[in-house]
């Protein structure tokens, strides 16, 4: 990362001009330096300046030279990374677009069929009543349909439209009118429109498509009943946000799409953000984009992702200088250090990269295959067991995002791989019928859903073993057959088959889970691909000014890290930031702060002599300290000025409201608690 500005550069703009500028509503700070060539020259100018400042030391100059090279390389890196981000994000974006289009395709096809059908009805049965011909059905977004001849035509004379319809040779096609959001329409206008259309429906076979964002009651709430009877509605539903979410997750994060992936914690955060924020895909995609940009902005090697699908990065790695830089960074990655021994060279790195790519691919496949492999077991027709095991999947209780979170969890993975063979606990079904259970993570028992599923299979096997045995010995023991009564009654051949299938399935699943479903975080070099910093993501995504600004004021000494005020606990010290003192004092008041009292306690705080500091920790506002010896040369005017300034600053932050005419001696507190 380039230290983009050195302390030397930080000279503020000259004061006279900045004062002028401060009072301008707006001004041009500077114009663009033209082009990239100049960008480099500014870089060298910077260096020159730096060298000028330390000309005497040869050593320094050398170091600076080295640094300059490094900086230049970092510069290249930044450009490479920006490009990589653009490539990766455009891949993700187009993938999402395609996925969402596919999700809608079925509904759109259905709508198209329906339109044709309705049209045929209109055309063929000219004797039917008017109201049956004008049909409307609610869907949620616009359908780009080839038959869209008109939008809203309220301003036109409808007979003109009719003659246009006949003349233009359009006869034979329906006229589809799309109302994007019926709930945003004016009810009376809509009613008139529908009544008019229904009168003309034989001349112009109009078919209405209405978007409804809420419930099916919407048309009923907006339109009067005499208008409603002119409509013959048919319902189409687009995918729910969760369904679309699953589709997007699958395409973007599970299947290899762009190479970019997120860590367990980030996935958890994004899931909670999706569930708690507004449950819209937009906010999820925004979170993903911020995660992506954060990754590319801090991870030096992330540029490799730009060429992950092509062989470009191999070419990049041919570049000697660049390769050196890459290796320098790569060998510092904790996951790489942990997992390699011996010499560090380019080959190891490239090998590591391709291994990584392979693993990522497998990972995606295994995460996706798993449900099918369950189905494979499912087909054995062992109902009681299956019901329990797949309840979640069947009844929409487990979303792909939940499974993803689990698959990404390194702890769970360790638990699974170490314990599945030994620990078969009595574990009730982890899913209550309560939909909420999967939203409040972690609700799963140790080992999660995947581990649980594996254990269940083991249990089943164990269950089968004695049954088979007893079948062989032809001595059925009643006490063992409680659960497996049905199996016991089946033929031995079937049992053998079942057992073999179970065993195979179990081995396969265990093997897949153990070898291929490794969480990304435990794979060497994952730092290149995987975004892990959930705190960064959170703070960039969700600003919390209301809380943070108050915390700034209440704990100014922590942020400023000054010696004079730290270690004071809750005591207010005269050295503290004035506004911070004032806001701390304000906490002692109710919703109204008496200005006089506030001033007096502020005054006594800033005048508080050092020796007496301890006893005077908390002042009740009513206590006046008029006899206070004034140790410092602070004039009354200076204190009042500081008080005024602090009040202004609090006013700017919006934390207090100014006195009103009715209450000239009080300011009002605005925020209570964080």
């Amino acid at each position, binding site marked *: 990362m380039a230290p983009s500005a050195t302390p030397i550069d930080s000279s503020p703009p000259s004061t006279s001009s900045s004062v002028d500028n401060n009072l301008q*509503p707006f001004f041009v700070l500077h114009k663009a330096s033209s082009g990239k060539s100049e960008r480099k020259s500014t870089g060298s100018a910077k260096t020159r300046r730096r060298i000028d400042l330390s000309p005497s030391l040869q050593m320094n100059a050398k170091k600076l030279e080295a640094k300059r090279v490094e900086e230049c390389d970092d510069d290249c890196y930044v450009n490479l990374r920006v490009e990589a981000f*653009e490539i990766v994000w455009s891949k993700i974006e187009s993938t999402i677009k395609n996925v969402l289009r596919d999700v809608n395709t079925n509904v759109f096809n259905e709508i198209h069929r329906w339109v044709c059908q309705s049209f045929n009805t209109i055309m063929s049965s000219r004797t039917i009543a008017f109201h049956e011909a004008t049909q409307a059905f609610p869907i949620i977004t616009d359908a780009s349909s080839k038959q869209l001849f008109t939008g809203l035509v309220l301003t036109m004379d409808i007979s003109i439209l009719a003659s246009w319809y006949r003349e233009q040779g359009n006869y034979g096609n329906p006229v589809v009118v799309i109302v994007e959001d019926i709930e945003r329409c004016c009810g009376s206008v809509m009613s008139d429109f529908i009544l008019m259309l229904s009168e003309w429906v034989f001349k112009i076979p109009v078919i209405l498509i209405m978007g409804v964002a809420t419930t099916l009651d919407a048309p009923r709430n907006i339109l009067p009943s005499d208008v409603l009877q002119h409509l013959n509605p048919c319902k189409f539903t687009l995918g729910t946000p969760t369904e679309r979410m699953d589709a997007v997750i699958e395409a973007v994060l599970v299947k290899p799409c762009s190479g970019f992936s997120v860590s367990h914690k980030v996935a958890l955060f994004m899931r909670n953000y999706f569930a708690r924020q507004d449950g819209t895909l937009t906010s999820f995609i925004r979170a993903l984009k911020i995660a992506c940009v954060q990754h590319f902005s801090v991870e030096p090697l992330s540029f490799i992702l730009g060429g992950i699908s092509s062989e470009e990065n191999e070419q990049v790695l041919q570049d000697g200088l660049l390769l050196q830089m890459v290796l320098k960074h790569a060998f510092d990655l904790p996951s790489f250090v942990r997992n390699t021994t011996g010499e560090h060279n380019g080959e190891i790195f490239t090998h590591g990269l391709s291994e990584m790519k392979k693993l990522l691919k497998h990972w995606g496949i295994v995460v996706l295959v798993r449900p099918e492999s369950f189905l494979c077991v499912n087909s054995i027709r062992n109902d009681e067991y299956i019901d329990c095991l797949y309840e979640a999947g069947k009844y929409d209780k487990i979303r792909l995002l939940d499974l993803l979170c689990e698959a990404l969890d390194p702890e769970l993975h360790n638990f699974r791989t170490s314990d599945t063979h030994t620990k078969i606990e009595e574990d009730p079904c982890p899913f209550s019928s309560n939909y909420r259970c999967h939203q409040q993570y972690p609700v799963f028992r140790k080992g999660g859903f995947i581990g649980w599923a594996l254990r269940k299979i083991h249990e089943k096997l164990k269950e089968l073993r004695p049954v088979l045995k007893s079948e062989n010995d032809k001595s059925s023991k009643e006490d063992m057959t409680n659960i497996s009564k049905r199996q016991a009654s089946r033929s031995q051949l079937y049992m053998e088959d079942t057992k073999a299938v179970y065993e195979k399935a179990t081995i396969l699943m265990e093997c897949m889970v153990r070898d291929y479903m490794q969480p990304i975080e435990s794979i060497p070099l994952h730092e290149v691909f995987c975004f892990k910093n959930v705190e960064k993501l959170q703070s960039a995504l969700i600003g919390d000014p209301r809380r*943070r600004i108050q915390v700034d004021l209440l704990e100014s000494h922590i942020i*400023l890290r000054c010696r004079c005020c730290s270690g004071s606990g809750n005591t207010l010290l005269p050295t503290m930031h004035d506004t911070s003192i004032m806001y701390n004092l304000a906490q002692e008041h*109710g919703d109204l702060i008496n200005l006089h009292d506030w001033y007096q306690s502020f005054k006594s705080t800033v005048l508080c002599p050092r020796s007496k500091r301890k006893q005077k920790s908390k002042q009740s506002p009513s206590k006046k300290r008029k006899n206070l010896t004034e140790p410092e040369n602070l004039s009354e005017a200076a204190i009042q000025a500081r008080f*005024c300034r602090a009040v202004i600053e609090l006013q700017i932050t919006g934390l207090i409201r100014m006195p009103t005419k009715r209450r000239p001696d009080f300011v009002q507190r605005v925020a209570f608690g964080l």
Partner: protein
Amino acid sequence: MEINDGDEDEFGFSRNYFLAKDMAASGKKSTHKLSDIDLVDEQELRAEASNAEPKHEKEIESLMESYKSLYSKWVFELRCGFGLLMYGFGSKKALIEDFASTALTEYSVVVINGYLQSINIKQVLITLAELLWDQLKSKRRTPSRNLSKAQQPFNTRSMDDLLAFLDGSQEEENDGVVCVVIHNIDGPGLRDSETQQYLAQIASCSHIRIVASIDHVNAPLLWDKKMVHTQFNWCWYHVPTFAPYKVEGMFFPLILAHGGSAQSAKTAAIVLQSLTPNAQSVFKILAEYQLSHPDEEGMPIDNLYTVSRERFLVSSQVTLNSHLTEFKDHDLVKTRRHSDGQDCLYIPLASEALEKLLSDMNQ
């Protein structure tokens, strides 16, 4: 600068609104008056305020210094199409301008001072369009169709036209990006929803990147979901500086200044200047009456009418009333009930302020 979420209890102050209300209602409400403080003269106060010795200068400086390591990250995010939103206590003006002038040299940068009272967004848009036009022209890669279109001077074009120009096609995007720095996007001059809508539209233009700061705790309420998610596309940064709000607070009244008389006399003079000579004369009659009868509640309306009519300033009660409405709208004149039940008019200014105002008017 991360602060744990769990800190809340440690503050020991997380009292809620109702507790605070309770405290106020419990009868302990202080009856002290502001006037009990021995207030110093306003001029002295202002002088002291501007000379006050800053605290923690060194720490503030190193805090600012620490943010410099983030500059490259910020540039990265701007390049990737995000907007930067800086918040946290303290003036962020110097920080953002330093960032813009050291790290954004590649781009043209326009600074909007949102803390000022009135900002003409259209003028800003024209400036942005002109900058972008220069930039595109110097690159000489602009398609000719745009050339001809832009020959019309920008200041005669509509907002929509200007926005459309700034939201040019994707291919051009790399050629010209203009950064807009908005100090206090939540400031008084930008706070209304129409302006915010325009700012959001500007922010969503392909040739524009925004770096903004907020200081008000409720600033996010200015934006709806669409503005936040798709137009501004904020990346939030908590960057408390604790630097004094010098410029930002310039126009705020000092709470301990004497009733702000100087201020209101000044505003009164400005309002009066914009009125007709006759209206000014009516106001003068009232002011002179108030100065010569300092103990009375005010001048009875009938009285004022009679005097004004005598001096040929008004011809009817209706004319006088229209003047009075004007005065009242600008808080120049108020009514109150006289002890004998009659409504009377008075000017809500202290005698000295009124005298000064009169002498100003006579000049």
